[in-house]
């Protein structure tokens, strides 16, 4: 997949304030740095398999900024960017990739559903949460995230259809990064663009350059306003690219050319916004360097927290399987304790 013409259009950045652009820029840097450190941690054995997002920062950060605090996110395994923006602590995300149960728990008041690993299954959840918001008369929306590959799953279809039929305040936000692991979009669907799929559900479809943070921000803002107005769902296709492998367990050179990756790097979302900010005279290379330093400190302290977290107590396996543990599970837990002790302590 080569970047298309459309993606080369300049950001319509006139409409957004410098402050907002600067905030979003800093967030993109934070997210990129977080991501690179995560990959490095995995390579050095300090993190489990990790799904990198480098290249997709504009799509995620732009989306995150267009939402309100009480809105719901239903993320996949790759939504670290938007999750951080929406209030998920970085150490929590690190813990998740270390297989820690705490890794799925957002702070109180932050509505981020645990990562859905089974592809597309979170889209109906977003639809249901939006439905609840509508029934309760809350001015809240839900965003269901998915990838290009996920559009092939039945759950995507059923969720889109429900969204259309019940006219729900939901955004179905698809990051089309051109690949489902190794499978390119051309083998995933016979259409050229994913946005073409929306019409069949009576759902408005919008396609944006996912590497243009302003375009993403505006598309999501419009969709969110529309949803809050009661005018129903929007499907957004944000065309983007992941620079790295699908996960750290994948090797992307098996299925795509280095030249393709390079072509996309030339459209880098961070570089693009940086150019704009410098042109506007609100940013400089010095500030940039300082900002990378600053985010390094933030990410490092999240890593420190993650590493300082004591091992998980064995009881954690049982604690939350039911609101009240059935007798059989109490006995299983007791036998587990007898055999393996409490775990957790350092």
């Amino acid at each position: 997949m080569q970047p298309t013409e459309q993606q080369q259009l300049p950001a319509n950045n006139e409409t957004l304030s410098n402050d907002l652009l600067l905030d979003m820029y800093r967030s993109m840097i934070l997210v990129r740095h977080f991501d690179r450190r995560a990959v490095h941690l995995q390579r050095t054995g300090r993190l489990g398999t990790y799904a990198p997002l480098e290249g997709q920062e504009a799509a995620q950060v732009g989306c995150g900024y267009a939402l309100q605090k009480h809105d719901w996110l239903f993320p996949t395994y790759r939504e670290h960017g938007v999750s951080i923006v929406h209030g998920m602590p970085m150490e929590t995300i690190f813990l998740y990739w270390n297989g820690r149960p705490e890794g799925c728990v957002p702070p109180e008041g932050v509505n981020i559903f645990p990562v859905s690993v089974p592809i597309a299954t979170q889209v109906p959840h977003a639809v249901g949460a939006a439905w609840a918001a509508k029934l309760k008369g809350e001015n809240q929306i839900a965003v269901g995230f998915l990838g290009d590959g996920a559009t092939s799953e039945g759950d995507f279809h059923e969720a889109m259809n429900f969204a259309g039929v019940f006219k729900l305040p939901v955004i179905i936000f698809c990051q089309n990064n051109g690949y489902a692991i190794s499978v390119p979009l051309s083998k995933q669907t016979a259409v050229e663009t994913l946005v073409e799929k929306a019409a069949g559900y009576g759902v408005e479809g919008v396609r944006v350059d996912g590497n243009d943070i302003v375009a993403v921000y505006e598309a999501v803002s419009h969709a969110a306003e529309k949803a809050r107005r009661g005018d129903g769902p929007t499907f957004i296709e944000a065309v983007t690219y992941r620079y790295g492998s699908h996960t750290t367990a994948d090797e992307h050179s098996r299925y795509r050319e280095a030249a393709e990756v390079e072509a996309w790097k030339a459209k880098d979302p961070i570089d693009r916004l940086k150019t704009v900010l410098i042109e506007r005279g609100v940013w400089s290379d010095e500030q940039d360097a300082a900002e990378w330093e600053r985010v390094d400190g933030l990410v490092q302290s999240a890593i420190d927290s993650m590493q300082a977290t004591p091992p998980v107590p064995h009881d954690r396996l049982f604690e939350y399987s039911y609101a009240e543990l059935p007798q059989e599970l109490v006995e299983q837990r007791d036998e587990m304790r007898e055999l393996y002790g409490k775990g957790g302590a350092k």
Partner: protein
Amino acid sequence: MAKMTILQAITDGLRVALREDERVLVLGEDVGVNGGVFRATDGLQGEFGPHRVVDTPLAEAGIIGSSVGLAVNGMRPIPEIQFFGFIYPAMEQIVAHAARVRMRSQGRFSCPMVIRAPYGAGIRAPELHGDSPEAFFVHQPGIKVVCPSNPYDAKGLLLAAIDDPDPVLFLEPLRMYRAFREEVPEGRYTVELGKANVVKPGKDVSVFAWGTMLRVALEAAKSAAEKGLDVEVVDLRTLSPLDRETIAASVKKTGRAVVVHEAPKSAGVGAEIASVIQDEAFLYLEAPVMRVAGYDTPQPLFSLEDIYAPDAKRILHGIDKAMNF
């Protein structure tokens, strides 16, 4: 007190829940205008409106998946699966999501929902309208499985299931829907989940059953009595978690056990019950636990359904095998 069928008791239970709790909503295929293909939701849309009793598109994963989102965001959805055999497309949403929301989020989110489904065979319905895959859900941790055998329990267990903070699969024995009437109290009452009921005490052999098979087991017990056998019949009512205490107490008393179900025998719930019995009452057992179940073939078209499902004769045969081992 009004006399009701199981079906009426269920409708009544739904009505109570819809009245008492604004968060409750009923959704599914044909549950609204039509009142459900068995009329279990008859009149409810008229009383509570189309926003609380909702006809959905024909999509089981969508129904359960959106119910997960509804539940997580504060509602109490009661999705209906039109027949239990149509739950398969919703498997992933149930076993990978509904059952795991609490654990996955470490209690931060929960998924209180009651999935209702007409269950079992025996009404000359087309293929797949008579499947009994309850074992799948008993095997999946995080979701409870309940099945009443009479009108009183149907309403009481349903209201308890709706109160439960975790997802519950509520199986409605369709062959019994209109089979008989019983007194059912008005308004709210509950029957505790996880408790079996010794329907007929006896001392020679214990028969464990639920749903439609409970009545068939009672029939068999009656025939056995004619032969001088005193059969204890236990209605399990909740299949997950099992009431191991009541099961064990019964077998410790009788020393012999027969488990009955409509699903295929291999790796059915009967295997779990047999295993629980030997875990808990090994030294009391005078004979292997007999499993009287569907055969290990797919549920057949209805010309063969009577041969497929256990009847009193087959249960009696199981009782005899347990007695004469």
